[in-house]
């Protein structure tokens, strides 16, 4: 059967014109999203520059985007930023990887074994509240002054977020999926990989993204352990020199890498999830 042409004619027909409340998202054309984002960030930069110039604060305390991008350019030209970012990113990816695997396994175990949840589970909630710097002394003690100590701090900083995210995700999943799966003969580890985790995945994803952010934070704390070229060190150097432009340049770099990873890693996963589950597909 042929689809009547008017139904496919204009994608604009998918647009909903009414004034009624529309709390859930529409699928919009790709380019407008980017245009809007560019516009927003552009406006943000302009406001920042204006505040920096005409605001009540001296510009050495509140450098504007021009000065900061100058600092970024300098940092990149000198090779410091790139080398520092590479060092930090490697640690981040490694530490986060450990947290990811450990967090998923531990989170699943917490739900599976009530004993663990009652004991380790309640401890984790408290451990999560510890600032990353608290782990430094233990890290040095246990691992010595080396990469492993830094990775340890990163893991401690992000693991618990992921564990709790996974645990909550699984615990708040409708038991019907597990019932259906066991009914069809799924058991043991496969029950987890095939059903429990996919069913909980929409919720878990949030925990994974938060874990990523906290891996960053802890990495910055860990990199103050001792001087070696890294983003955390560049940040601290900026602070020590009261070089607001450098501090902001490193912050910009962190934000940039954070946003980039989000787009490369998490946004596609989210899109996949909503497509499959049908979240936010309603135009109403």
């Amino acid at each position, binding site marked *: 059967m042929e689809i009547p042409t008017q139904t496919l004619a204009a994608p604009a*027909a*998918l647009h909903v014109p009414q*004034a009624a409340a529309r709390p859930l998202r529409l699928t919009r054309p790709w380019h407008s999203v980017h245009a809007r984002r560019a516009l927003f960030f552009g406006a943000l930069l302009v406001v920042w520059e204006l505040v920096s110039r005409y605001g009540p604060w001296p510009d050495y305390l509140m450098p504007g985007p021009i000065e900061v991008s100058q600092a970024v350019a300098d940092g990149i030209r000198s090779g410091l930023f790139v080398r520092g970012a590479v060092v930090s990113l490697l640690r981040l990816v490694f530490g986060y990887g450990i947290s990811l695997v450990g967090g998923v396994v531990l989170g699943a175990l917490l739900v599976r074994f009530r004993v663990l949840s009652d004991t380790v589970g309640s401890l984790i909630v408290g451990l999560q509240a510890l600032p990353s710097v608290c782990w430094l002394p233990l890290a040095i003690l246990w691992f010595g002054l080396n990469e492993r100590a830094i990775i340890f701090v990163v893991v401690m900083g992000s693991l618990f977020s992921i564990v709790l995210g996974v645990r909550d995700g699984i615990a708040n999943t409708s038991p019907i999926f597990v019932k259906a799966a066991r009914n069809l003969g799924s058991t043991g580890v496969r029950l987890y990989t095939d059903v429990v985790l996919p069913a909980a995945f929409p919720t878990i994803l949030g925990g994974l993204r938060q874990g990523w952010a906290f891996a960053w934070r802890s990495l910055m704390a860990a990199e103050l352990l001792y001087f070696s070229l890294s983003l955390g060190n560049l940040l601290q150097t900026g602070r020590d020199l009261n070089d607001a432009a450098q501090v902001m340049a490193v912050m910009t770099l962190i934000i940039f890498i954070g946003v980039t990873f989000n787009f490369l890693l998490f946004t596609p996963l989210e899109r996949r999830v909503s497509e499959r589950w049908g979240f936010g597909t309603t135009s*109403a």
Partner: protein
Amino acid sequence: MSTGRALHLRGVGKTYVSGDRVVQALAPTDLDVAPGEFVCLLGASGCGKSTLLQLVAGLEEPTSGQITVDDVPVAGPSPDRVLLFQDAALFPWLSVEDNVRFGLRQSTRSREEQHRIAQEWIEKVHLLGFEHAWVHQLSGGMRQRAALARALATDPSMLLMDEPFGALDALTRDRLHEELESLWAATRKTVVFVTHNVREAVALGDRVLVLSPRPGRIVGDFRITLPRPRALEDVTVMQQASEIMHVLRRALDAATDDALLEA
């Protein structure tokens, strides 16, 4: 009590596009329902019945055409046109009573009145004793009944019912048929009622519409003039039903499942 409104569909069609899947659920359709009319919709599974109700409820946007209620274009949902979802769609964080009160709370009624109306409806759908139960503690049929109470409690002038009695045993269904018919007789609400039970359609409807398989088109429009109340077991009801069944069967046999285009 609210009385019915006129419903008009002009060339209303719906095509779902997601990724490279294009599914035409409803072919452009014209339909006129008079105020206070009780219209039943029959059609094969997946032919677009639920889609049609969602469009009329204003919860989905038609890909083509226009829907008007009392000559006002539909531009979103309204508590005056309540849809009873095929899968109940109760709120799991609310008790049965609070679910039933939900629509009432949007109005300006006093708490006492809300409570009274809710109790009344909970009784009518035979859920007394389950006012404080959570949704997950209900059986499938009990959920359908709770959803029915929630929808009817708000006293809309147009009722859009998507297989409301599908999960009920014959006796409970008979009782609820009676309730619905007497409510309708008293208020003359406009009702659009989707069902797979042809005799149920004949027993309840002023008109029975038959949709073709996907993409749905109206291929039969029967006016039922039998005297009310009608029982499912009445011979006249059975006769009309078998006539309509015939049309349905023809529509289904004629159709080939080719509405799915891989774009």
